């Protein structure tokens, strides 16, 4: 459920007990709270839902899984 959009952390600053990040979504940026992804750093991609990052995207895992799909696409020519 729920619209969660992937974005790239450009910079992060501490704000009291919380951390705020400037996250870029394809040309626009927005302030996002990093309370639930304390390990996320600038350069990481996060999934953002209602102003909070809910996960850090596992880039290596994403690449591995997507490469498997591409391999598969080569084997399986699309039928019109």
């Amino acid at each position, binding site marked *: *459920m*729920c*619209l969660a*959009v992937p*974005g790239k952390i450009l910079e992060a600053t501490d704000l009291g007990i919380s951390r705020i990040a400037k996250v870029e*979504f*394809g*040309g*626009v*940026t*927005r*302030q996002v709270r990093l309370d639930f992804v304390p390990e996320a750093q600038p350069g990481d991609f996060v999934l*953002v*839902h*209602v102003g909070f990052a809910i996960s850090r995207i596992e880039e290596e895992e994403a690449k591995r899984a997507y490469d498997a799909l591409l391999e598969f696409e080569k084997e399986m020519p699309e039928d019109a």
Partner: protein
Amino acid sequence: MTGFVCPVPLHSTETVLLGHGSGGKLSSDLLHSVFLPAFANPVLERLEDQAVLEFGSARLAFTTDSFVAKPLFFRGGDIGSLAVHGTVNDLAMCGARPVALSAAFILEEGFPLSDLRRIADSMARAASIAGVTIVTGDTKVVEHGSGDGVYVTTTGIGVVPPGVNLSAAHARPGDAIVLSGAIGDHGIAMLSAREGLELDGEIASDSAPLNGLVEAMLAVTHEVHAMRDPTRGGLASTLNEIARESRVGIVLREDAIPVHAGVRGACEVLGLDPLHVANEGKLVAFVPMQHAAGVVKAMRRHPLGAEAAIIGRVADCDPGMVTMRTVFGTTRIVDVLPGDQLPRIC
């Protein structure tokens, strides 16, 4: 009586809702349930964005519009330039050469005169660029708290050249659908300026006068069938209106519709569809297929048509319906929203 009460359906509400101003189905409902029955006349019933009145051999185009922009000043314009461009465009969409505008202001007590001067200057500049003059107007002041700073209402008159017959009812099967450029810029610029969204981007409103572009298109051929500027409600609303008025089907290609990257990003974040987002400097035209390439070429030579593209065609099936071939080659409906498109979380 079973004792069951239906949840009150929106369309039978007895008070005005914000959605009535959104350009979607509710706006249409208001028109059909209040104004058309009251004013009943054949010119109004054509439901164009302007009225074309005949005086002997001359045809005069006549339009009115009101502007309630919030915020008043935004990236790419202000309520003043928006008012001038919007009125000029309503006239241009029937092929008229815009001549003169009136401007009436409802001002809220306490509104800073410096802001008012800024708006007036902006309107003067916009009018000059569009080649029109603001020849008459009016001012009223309401008590503090009764308005949003300033509301602007305009009227505009223009002259329709002979041989030009644009109407939302004239689209024909086989017509190419031409879009003058990328969609969604104005709506996103306005949303970005609103508090709470905290969306930073370089997106500016595309507010602009389209009469020069229209002239360039009509110089290629007078056989353009229909033209409209997709303002509130977005491209989806405008195309659905034309499909309904002309009783034709419209088939679009998703991969042909230009959207700027920043607009796309903002729409993803807010859960909006660019097809439903307002524009203020774009037009969509229905051109017989044999003239389409020539018209697009002429548009691309004009600064406001640099990204012009053919985005679809008129079909003779499914009259009144707008469908789109997705990037996957599947088909989906492009619908009109009931009211305002609100950013969603789901």
